[in-house]
């Protein structure tokens, strides 16, 4: 993490600090994003995700630390970097009285390189709304337009700040498809989110942030595997075998009774399930709603911060 950025790092953040008055918004953050990956900053509101991202975009200067994008120092080459990146801000910022096509064409004039407006309308499914003034768009349409504006210059790096906040599940799925397509096109994506399932569904790698610090980073599997070696075998509590027998099953470390479920924590799922089925067979029953669950990012976050991410 320290020292010179790796050759293939598209984004390199090295020991960056930023305070607003007494508040340490970003408190020594470092991470690198490789070409072509979707990198997520995951954390609750106020964790410093947006400030970190906006410093990389050149919107705020860090108090200290190094920021490089596409091999260029953000301090000295902000304009050159801005030409090659696409930015979607958390709150969609649009001219209310301009139409969708007018706005896309306007932003096109700011860049040396640009994608055809028609292409953007198609990709973001905004064709029907092309002549609507932006003040008349729905939340989902607005968000798609905001992403479209980030793609006007056919950018190599795309920054998405909470791209699906406030969207209904269908609209969220639609945006996930768009983000995956951006990755397929070879773009590098840095996004923030406070949705676990979004981070799991989209991100190749993650940095978990809280109180301005990166608590841990890696792939979802790495983050979970580093602290949760066991999986949970869940089944219905009604008619379950007695506790002593369950605790005696092979590989089981502990048994937890939840409201309707029994959870067996095990280091070896097949062995434990074989033992469980053996027990129930002998009793002439079978385990209801049998399910195997591994620890989630939620559990990782709980483990790291001592509280749940849900806000």
């Amino acid at each position, binding site marked *: 993490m320290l020292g010179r950025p790796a050759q293939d790092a598209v984004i390199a953040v090295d020991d960056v600090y930023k305070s607003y008055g007494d508040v340490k918004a970003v408190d020594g953050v470092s991470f690198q994003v490789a070409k072509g990956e979707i990198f997520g900053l995951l954390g609750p509101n106020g964790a410093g995700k947006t400030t970190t991202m906006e410093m990389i975009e050149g919107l705020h200067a860090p108090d200290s630390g190094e920021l490089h994008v596409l091999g260029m120092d953000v301090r000295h080459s902000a304009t050159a970097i801005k030409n090659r990146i696409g*930015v979607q801000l958390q709150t969609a910022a649009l*001219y209310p009285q301009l139409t969708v096509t007018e706005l896309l064409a306007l932003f096109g004039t700011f860049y040396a390189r640009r994608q055809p407006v028609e292409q953007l309308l198609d990709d973001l499914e905004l064709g029907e709304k092309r002549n609507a003034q932006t003040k008349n768009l729905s939340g989902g349409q607005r968000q798609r337009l905001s992403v479209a504006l980030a793609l006007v210059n056919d950018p190599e790096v795309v920054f998405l700040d909470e791209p699906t906040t406030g969207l209904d599940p269908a609209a969220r799925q639609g945006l996930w498809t768009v983000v995956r397509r951006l990755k397929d096109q070879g773009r590098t994506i840095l996004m923030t989110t406070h949705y676990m399932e979004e981070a799991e569904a989209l991100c190749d790698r993650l940095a978990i942030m809280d109180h301005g610090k990166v608590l841990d980073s890696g792939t979802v599997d790495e983050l979970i595997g580093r602290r949760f070696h066991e999986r949970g075998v869940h089944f219905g509590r009604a008619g379950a075998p007695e506790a002593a027998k369950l605790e005696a099953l092979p590989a089981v470390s502990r048994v937890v009774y939840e409201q309707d479920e029994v959870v067996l924590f095990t280091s070896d799922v097949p062995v434990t399930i074989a033992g469980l089925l053996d027990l129930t067979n002998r009793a002439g029953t079978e385990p209801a709603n049998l399910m195997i669950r591994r620890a989630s990012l939620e559990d990782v976050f709980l483990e790291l911060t001592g509280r749940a991410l849900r806000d």
Partner: protein
Amino acid sequence: MRALRALSLANLKSFVRDRAALFWTLAFPIVFVILFGTIFSGSGAQYELGWVDQDGSAASAALRAAFVANAPVELTDGTFEESKARMQKGDVDGILVIPKGLQAVIDAAQGGQHPDPIQVSVVTDPSRSNTALAIQQIATGLVMGANLQLSGAAALLTVAPESLQTGQLNSVSFFVPSILAMALMQLGVFASIPLVQQREKLILKRLNATPLPRWALVGSNVAVRLIIAAVQTALIVGIGITVLGVQIPGNPLLIAAFVLLGALTFTSIGYVIASFARTEEAANGITSVVQFPLMFLSGIFFPIEVLPSWLKTVATFMPLTYLGDALRQTMVGGAPFVPLWVDGAVLGGWLVVTLGVSARFFRWQ
């Protein structure tokens, strides 16, 4: 450059599509001009004129009688010097001068000769242009009538219009440049509102995330203000000329230069407001606080001379005082409050200082 043009067009479209902004910047000053113009010009049915009879003949006496009988005029006899003094005091609106030789020309014509026509001078004040126009029309009409009566056809009398600047502007002529100055002031200080809106909606921040240079962003906002200023000027001057009959005899380039300087200075003041207003509500409040004293203490609705002395002192610091003064001087030849170069210097000074303040304090996000 392409970005500057596109952004100016975008701002202009936003402006035109915002009906409220359109009304307050374009329709409101026009309503003002027409309303006040009509009120102030309604008093001019009766004209008081100085009558200078240099012929002292039966013919000149007959002409005098014809004037009084046929036109809404009241004549005061006197020498030219006496009449001029009355006009400068504002006791009469104009002077008619009947030159020596009137009787002789008429006699000659009636004797079958063809004498050179003789000139009746009509002295009016161009700064009271619609009064001047009315008096000239009345004089011309009566002289033509007299011609017909005297000779049947040949023009024995002609009318020679002359000007005498009295330094007292009449209300309507006074009003058109004043309203123009007020409209330019409002246009400028109200520039703060869209700026603060764009900052609040994070439009400025979003633009800052593109390679668009800041000069292009500022340039496009100023360009739009100047375009609107040009439209406003054309509308206000056009209505002044066509509806209110005000004549604008001034040098168009000089007028345009002061319109430009005024628009720039007040737009810069708008940027200062936007530098200190964090919210749109605050910007609205500050704009009102700034514009009302400017409106009432800058000689727009009434001359600065009528203000109590401490307010007069305040007025001498108001930039609008100087824009109004410059426009009255350049457009209708109004009496100067200060010399024109001082107007230019004061406005230029305000421009430089406010540019410095906004360069220092303006925030993009």
